[in-house]
């Protein structure tokens, strides 16, 4: 692979590129699903190709190809330079890259059991057994299970001399029960909705989930939701389960801190951000107990945003985003770092595949654990609503106003969970919401959740991001808006 990389970089230089970086990537994926006791999807895929990004005449060009011959790669590199020269026809400023060292390294994400070595029969048997457990419950009208495994090898080379090989193994698994009754569809998922939990782990992730124990629980809850009371509409106290809080972090902290959005580079599609440059170190983003980091290092955990180097050849880092409630940092790359006074990229350039340009992405954007025991948090809540497992999510294009709904809610009265609520939802303004946080559970309740489906960029790229969170409490939140009908 290094020969292909060298060939591409040499061709780019010869054609007039002042900088180039190239990624050869080999992606393997296996998908298994069941539905109502039958196998649904059963497929695997592999894709290998090369993408090269170059600077020529002070502007960017990128081209990719799956023709991994000497001629194919040279033509691709030449095309990238031609495209960069075309970009220069509509440029306003020269691209300036923050300095970075070159690295020669090889890294593999840790895993105990290679999911591609586990017999398919074993994987399917587990899914079908969990599916059967859910179907045992009266009132369940649809059962679904899924597993997804990925193995990604990438060879990164740049014209400053880096040669970095990384191998990542990613696993995901989840189950869901749906119940249609009367004029209502209710659904419960485990351990999270939209495909379950996803992490930079091997098959041990699946084995840690205990699907068989949880299958009847979610199935019973799905059926029971029909007779639960409607979540009231009010201003009140909200406790969010960890997985829902993970998505709240993703949407209302992770996206607004992307410096490309802040600088208007996503204005046409993903949107911009309320976190304009003057807010850095000035904005009180959250209450003083809130600390958020963007941490791609393995030390933070095996999340979907964990790696050794980003796709621009910058080592993984931990960046303070919110420190004691104050806004402290953005996600940057080599091109944007200097615009916020940094002398180095924060290492967040990531690409979906060999045929996509690396763009600024969340790594693991996590809320650090607090001090509360979960039982104490419930006991301390006189009147509130606990919401768990995301059902819908939406936020405006500058990341101010959001609305989430969850699969299930629980009324908390006098320090106890007293009854189930259906159709829970809440909404708010990002900074008002985070400033209302008054309790965060401790590390024992903290999970590094994986969001495997974050869409951004044109052409669209899907990326996995990590979000550590533990159950937390928020005061004076608008509750029940999604189902209000005034």
């Amino acid at each position, binding site marked *: 692979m290094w020969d292909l990389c060298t060939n591409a970089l040499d061709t780019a230089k010869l054609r007039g590129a002042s900088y180039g970086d190239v990624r050869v990537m080999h992606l393997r994926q296996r998908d298994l699903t069941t539905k109502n006791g039958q*196998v649904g999807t*059963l497929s695997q895929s592999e894709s290998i190709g090369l993408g090269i990004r170059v600077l020529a005449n002070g502007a960017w*060009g990128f081209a990719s190809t799956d023709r991994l011959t000497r001629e194919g790669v040279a033509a691709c590199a030449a095309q990238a330079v031609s495209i960069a020269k075309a970009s220069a026809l509509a440029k306003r400023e020269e691209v300036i890259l923050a300095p970075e060292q070159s690295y020669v390294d090889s890294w593999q994400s840790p895993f105990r059991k290679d999911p591609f070595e586990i017999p398919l029969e074993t994987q399917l048997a587990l899914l079908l057994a969990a599916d059967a457990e859910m179907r045992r419950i009266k009132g369940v009208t649809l059962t679904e299970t899924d597993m997804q495994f990925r193995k990604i090898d990438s060879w990164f080379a740049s014209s400053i001399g880096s040669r970095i090989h990384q191998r990542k193994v990613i696993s995901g698994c989840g189950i869901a029960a749906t119940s249609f009754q009367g004029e209502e569809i209710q659904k419960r998922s485990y351990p999270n909705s939209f495909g379950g939990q996803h992490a930079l782990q091997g098959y041990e992730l699946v084995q840690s989930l205990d699907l068989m124990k949880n299958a009847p629980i979610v199935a019973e809850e799905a059926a029971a939701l029909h007779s639960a009371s409607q979540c009231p509409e009010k201003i009140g106290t909200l406790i969010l389960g960890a997985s829902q809080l993970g998505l709240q972090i993703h949407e209302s902290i992770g996206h607004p801190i992307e410096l490309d959005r802040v600088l208007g*580079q996503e*204005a046409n599609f993903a949107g911009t951000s309320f976190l304009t440059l003057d807010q850095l170190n000035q904005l009180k983003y959250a209450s003083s107990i809130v600390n958020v980091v963007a941490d791609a290092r393995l030390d933070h955990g095996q999340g979907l945003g964990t790696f050794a180097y980003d796709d621009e050849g910058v080592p993984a880092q931990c960046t303070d985003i919110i420190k004691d409630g104050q806004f402290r940092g953005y996600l940057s790359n080599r091109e944007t770092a200097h615009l916020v006074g940094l002398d180095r990229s924060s290492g967040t350039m990531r690409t979906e595949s060999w*045929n996509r340009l690396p763009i600024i992405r969340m790594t693991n954007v996590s809320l650090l654990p607090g001090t509360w025991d979960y039982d104490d948090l419930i006991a301390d809540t006189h009147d509130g609503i606990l919401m768990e497992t995301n059902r819908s999510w*939406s936020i405006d294009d500058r990341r101010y106003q959001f609305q989430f709904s969850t699969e299930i809610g629980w009324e908390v009265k006098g320090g106890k969970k007293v009854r189930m609520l259906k159709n829970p939802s809440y909404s708010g303004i990002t900074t008002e919401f985070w400033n209302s946080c008054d309790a965060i559970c401790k590390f024992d309740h903290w999970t590094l959740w994986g969001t495997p489906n974050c869409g951004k960029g044109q052409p669209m790229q899907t990326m996995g991001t990590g979000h550590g969170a533990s159950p937390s409490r928020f005061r004076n939140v608008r509750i029940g*808006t999604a189902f209000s009908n005034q």
Partner: protein
Amino acid sequence: MKPAAKSKVAAASASASSPELLRERELRRIIGSVLRLAKSTGAEETEVHVDEVADALSRFANNAIHQNVAEHGLTVSIRTVADGRTARATTNRIDEDSLRATIEASLSLARSQPKNPRLLPVPAKQHYSRVNRFIKPTAALSAEERARAVRRACDLAVKNGQVAAGIYSNGQSQSALGNSRGLFAAYRETHSEFSITIQEGPAASWAKANSADVRAYDPQKLAARACEKAHLAVNARELAPGRYTVILEPSAVLDLVGFLFYDFAATALEDKRSCLIDRTGRQLFGQNITITDDGYHPLQQGAPFDGEGLPRQRVLLVDRGIPKNLVYSRAAAKAAGKQPTGHGFALPNEYGEAPMNLVFTGGDSSVEKMVASTERGLLVTRLWYIREVDPYEKVMTGMTRDGLFLVENGKVTGAVRNFRFNQSLIEMLNNVELLGPAVRATGEEAFEMVVPAMKVHNFHFSEVTKF
């Protein structure tokens, strides 16, 4: 832009243009190779998809191109059948060893599972209607031409003291499908898109077009429209949330009604996850709502065959407000005692089928007439981040974006801060007062479809944001 000038530039800069797609005989050769290899590996039946794409996209922001990309890729996806079981394996390597390994992987997957009682034999040869959606000038558009068009759009923004961001893209793709019973289908198309957001201080507006034919729209006109609307959008004032009469431009309509298409899948009803459960055959929407799935409509794109190689059929989904028909894959049709409609996804999958080419019957109004007829209401340019809140009542939430305007006494009187909506699509399609002509609409949440602008009363805005 003049076509003659285009081809001249393209010829001078071939290396920045898309590579040529494989010819049909080469696609047949790849499929033939797979079928021959599969025969010797014990596959009882085999189906092969070959998909090739060559796309390019220039992205601009802050009045300059900041990303500019091109890609070329080809995948071979192989489904084998063994003893009542099936599975799929996909590769982008087309040497014989890789194809053989992919066949073996597919067979290994297939054999690892229990028998599938719904699995049908692969279909035999089919006949397809011809559609021509491959437009040479679109395929030939070069990076330099895109850059010059972007430059002109950005210069207009700069002249107005505004900031432009957007994309200009073009590409070509093809799909071929063959199976061990002699079925062969092939389709190629071109595609192009220009989308522009203009910011003027905190205000913004947007315009976008998408077509197989790059000559079907003028990026400069779209840029001028976005500039004009962005200027109108300054000094937005805050209104109280509540129920309003809205005039939804086609993009806003598309991104909402695009969430309906899965509900017309027979499998979705069988799974009891469609909003049409117990609701077909009776008046569900207003009598002015008629929806057809028509892959042959001149404003539509996409192959005239589905994931199993069956020809797509026109299906009347909603007739004057009454859901009349569903779409069926082969398996769903057999289970329901119906005929398949050519809307199946590639097997194996758990979703079955969906109509992908929705065409709404339009009306004789227009956005201008709708505004003129409105005493008080809101003109909506575009919607954003739409998600389903209630799957049976089809309540959707989302935001307005890039241009929300107050209409008073038949005139646009100013800009309004963006709202969040929580709105049932079923209710909305009962409240449509006026429809414009159906056009090829493009947004960000749904596939391009053919929908009209709509004037709708009692549209529910639940909250307001800060801009």
